[in-house]
């Protein structure tokens, strides 16, 4: 068994594409090996700023011989047809086999050396690699994320040769751009490759780079009695930007500490990729930053620390200029400028949007017990910071800055919080607003987008969701559920929109809720079973789904589901023969199983009804559970499709009633299993 090592050395690969590229490399290699009939025991991949690496373990030295049987013409077909078949297979007549009046040829493909196949595979894999954005360079036509600079292709210690646009794969690679000896070094196998890279100042594995950054950074800040503000997303990105991660602690001018901390953090994180630093137990930031350089500088990093510090000061100086200027103009005075900012050609200006959000926030506030005037004010001002200099320069701070400016001009704290939090939740890990006022504005913002874009026929399709409406709908769902708000969606949408909700919007919410449930490991079929009831109160829907899941997990639930399906099948079969009999079930004395089921239904129905009215869904399901034994017994002993027409009628009426009672709880027909 042997090992294959492929390295594609290129100019700097964008950090955000590396994880996907490693996945694609492993997937394409696995598919290609399978197609070539080459078994393997393990595939691993690595991605960093300058290289993509593939290691396949446990490969055979040769491909197995393969035989392919091809069907030819019939034995009584004209001679010309047979000759054609012989030509296409390259065989003679005596090599053929006649079976059932048809000629068959067996073509033998001798197995080829694995190294040969791997070279071809690597070449074709590179040629069709799915980069999200790719380019050509020089006079070539190969598309890659940035120019390829070197190819290393080693099978079992030998070069598995291939060539791309004049670049031949070999057994050499390059180390760090600036550290160590320049030039290329030879590689024997993966262990040697990994060690050779380390020796030439390249950490191959992303996780190792991350650990090195964390360990180094924590130790470095601890020497000054500081603490790192950890940030997993930033760590991931930085680990994709350096080959020899070297944390460096720099100083920030303490005069900038009076800026809102979000401003300094945004500048550090988004623009400079620095980690922020704080003093343990103290609020706010400490006047330092931690950057991760790609080299251990010959002067110990002093120049790098000073240089980065100066860049940070210049950036923060810019921010300070805007912060000072912005505070001279009240948010309300900025609304006029929003007139000139188009939200969408068919949905008017940002000013018009602000007015709509204000009106919607007022409506929602009334329903959830927030101050309607404050909600309208916060709604109207929510987008005003888009016209400020600081948000123009740092768009990531939209909302947050609005909150600061509102506070600065003396608006109530709840209004400031409602403005700053109105984009929430911005991602799966972001919290939803909790205060009624903030909830009103956050919901109004999202519902205005959804109603607007659906009303002009801009609903998301397939992978296209340019206005992030899926996220907006999920945001609405999360805000409603996490705060337990009783807001029937269609009523809410109608109130805001002033007429029926645009086509497809309520169904879109149902769909998003299903996706959200599935993402949390829930069953989409249960959501369907509950949605079929036509309810649009999300809190109630979820309660019902939870109760249903618990019920179906019980023995009674599973059996009753089977009984329901059986009843439905019988009713469907009988319905084909003619309309099902109508009317309430009738009492009988025998068979006793029929009488028992009827009795159970009679007792059960009001209990279920009362529980549903009280939104006690476990109660309703518990009541249904009492039907299980009688239903099982009924199917065991009673033939519904009796030859006596009156018996058949009465039994069908009973089944219809039992089924109807279950349907009032959930559409069990949509539950799978």
């Amino acid at each position, binding site marked *: 068994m042997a090992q294959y090592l492929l390295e594609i050395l290129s100019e700097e690969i964008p950090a955000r594409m590396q994880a996907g590229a490693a996945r694609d490399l492993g997937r394409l290699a696995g598919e290609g090996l399978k197609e070539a009939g080459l078994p393997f025991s393990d595939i691993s991949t690595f991605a960093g700023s300058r290289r993509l690496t593939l290691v396949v373990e446990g490969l055979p030295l040769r491909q197995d011989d393969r035989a392919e049987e091809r069907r030819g013409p019939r034995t009584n077909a004209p001679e010309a047809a047979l000759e054609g078949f012989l030509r296409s297979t390259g065989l003679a007549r005596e090599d053929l086999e006649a079976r059932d009046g048809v000629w068959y040829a067996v073509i033998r493909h001798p197995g080829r050396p694995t190294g040969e196949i791997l070279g071809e595979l690597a070449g074709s894999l590179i040629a069709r690699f799915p980069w999200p954005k790719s380019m050509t360079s020089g006079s070539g036509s190969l598309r890659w994320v940035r120019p390829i600079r070197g190819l290393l292709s080693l099978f079992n210690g030998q070069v598995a040769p291939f060539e791309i646009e004049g670049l031949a794969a070999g057994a050499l690679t390059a180390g760090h751009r600036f550290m160590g000896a320049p030039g290329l070094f030879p590689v024997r196998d993966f262990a040697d490759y990994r060690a050779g890279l380390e020796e030439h100042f390249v950490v191959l594995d992303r996780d190792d780079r991350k650990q090195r950054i964390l360990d180094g950074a924590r130790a470095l800040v601890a020497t000054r009695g500081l603490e790192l503000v950890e940030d997993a997303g930033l760590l991931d990105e930085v680990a994709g930007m350096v080959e020899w991660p070297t944390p460096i602690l720099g100083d920030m001018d303490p005069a900038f500490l009076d800026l809102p901390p979000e401003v300094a953090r945004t500048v550090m994180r988004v623009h400079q990729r620095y980690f922020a630093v704080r003093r343990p137990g103290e609020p706010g930031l400490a006047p330092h930053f931690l950057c991760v350089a790609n080299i251990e500088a010959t002067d110990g990093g002093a120049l790098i620390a000073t240089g980065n510090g100066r860049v940070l000061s210049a950036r923060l100086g*810019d921010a300070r200029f805007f912060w000072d200027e912005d505070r001279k103009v009240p948010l309300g005075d900025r609304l006029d400028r929003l007139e000139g900012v188009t939200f969408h050609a068919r949905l008017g200006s940002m000013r018009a949007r602000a007015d709509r959000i204000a009106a919607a926030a007022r409506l929602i506030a009334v329903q959830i017990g927030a101050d309607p005037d404050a909600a309208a004010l916060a709604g109207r001002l929510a987008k005003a910071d888009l016209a400020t200099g600081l948000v123009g320069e740092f768009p990531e701070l939209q909302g947050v800055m609005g909150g600061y400016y509102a506070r600065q001009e003396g608006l109530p704290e709840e209004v400031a919080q409602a403005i700053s939090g109105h984009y929430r939740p911005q991602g799966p890990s972001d919290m939803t607003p909790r205060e009624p006022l903030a909830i009103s504005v956050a919901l109004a913002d999202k519902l205005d987008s959804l109603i607007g874009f659906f009303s002009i026929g801009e609903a998301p399709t397939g992978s296209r969701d340019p206005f992030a409406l899926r996220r907006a709908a999920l945001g609405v769902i999360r805000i409603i559920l996490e705060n337990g708000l009783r807001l029937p969606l269609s009523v809410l949408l109608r109130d805001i929109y002033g007429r029926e909700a645009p086509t497809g919007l309520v169904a879109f919410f149902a769909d998003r809720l299903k996706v959200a449930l599935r993402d949390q490991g829930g069953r989409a079929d249960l959501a369907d079973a509950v949605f079929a009831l036509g309810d649009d109160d999300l809190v109630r829907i979820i309660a019902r789904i939870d109760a249903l899941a618990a019920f179906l997990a019980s023995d009674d639930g599973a059996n009753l589901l089977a009984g329901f399906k059986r009843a439905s099948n019988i009713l469907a079969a009988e319905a084909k023969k003619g309309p099902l009999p109508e009317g309430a079930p009738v009492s009988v004395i025998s068979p006793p199983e029929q009488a028992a089921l009827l009795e159970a239904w009679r007792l059960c129905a009001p209990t279920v009804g009362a529980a549903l009215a009280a939104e006690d869904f476990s109660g309703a399901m518990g009541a249904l559970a009492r039907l299980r034994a009688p239903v099982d017994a009924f199917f065991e002993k009673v033939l519904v499709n009796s030859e006596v027409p009156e018996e058949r009628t009465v039994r069908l009426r009973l089944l219809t009633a039992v089924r109807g009672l279950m349907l009032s709880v959930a559409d069990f027909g949509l539950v799978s299993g």
Partner: protein
Amino acid sequence: MAAERPLSFQDLILELHAYWSARGCVILQPYDLEVGAGTLHPGTVLRALGPKPWRAAYVQPSRRPSDGRYGENPNRLRSFHQYQVILKPNPPDMQELYLGSLQAIGIDPRKHDIRFVEDDWENPTVGAWGLGWEVWCDGMEVSQYTYFQQVGGLDVSPVSGELTYGLERLALYVQGVDNVFDLAFNDPESPDFKTYGDVFLESEREFSAFEQEAADVAMLQRHFEDMEAAVPRLLAARGRQGQPLVLPAFDHVLKASHLFNLLDARGAIAVAARQSYIGRIRDLCRACAEAWVALEGAA
């Protein structure tokens, strides 16, 4: 190069000239029209089109009327200088050539943290885009590095590599100065030492006021329309060798583009009209690009 004393602004330019001249570039002069970026020089935008190899380097004063701060901001200028290099086709070792140029101006990559950070460049008014990086030196963007993929709305082949150095930023870095107007323009020990401010501060002050307050909007609009009308007319006209007048037509595109920037700085372009202006300039540029490619192919 004197390692002890950092390069003055003009020595920075001279070093880059010497470096790129030694690597086969023709050293051009700045284009003698107002442009917003070095890319717009016909030595880049037109020469990047068509099949012929081309290597050029030049300084281009770049005017950004909206960035004017009346000479009061130490970091922002309405006119600054880009050092522009175009290598067509881009050689395989272009990154190394670029790093060599940094060393030539005194930036030692074993002491400084040089990074290539993803930044895909595009210029919608000339219908151009490419993939590449902004190059960081200790966290500061010192260059833009791009492999052109389209220019004038046309796919390019061969691909050109473009380097744009922000000269003021680079000089601030090399000289360790915080205020652009304090940069040493020539050698501080020379008989008549001048700072960057001595040379350009008055210009920043006057032109900021001109561009943001005093420029005549109606006149700018009229001129824009004149330039726009001239482009198709010049492309339809024929020179002595029977060619369309592409280079004069392109000059008019550049003028239209600068007039648009001035109108923008005067706040005379409504948000809704903005895209339409950009589209008009892009169409003009595309017409020139097509005519240029036809001409280069025929030659």
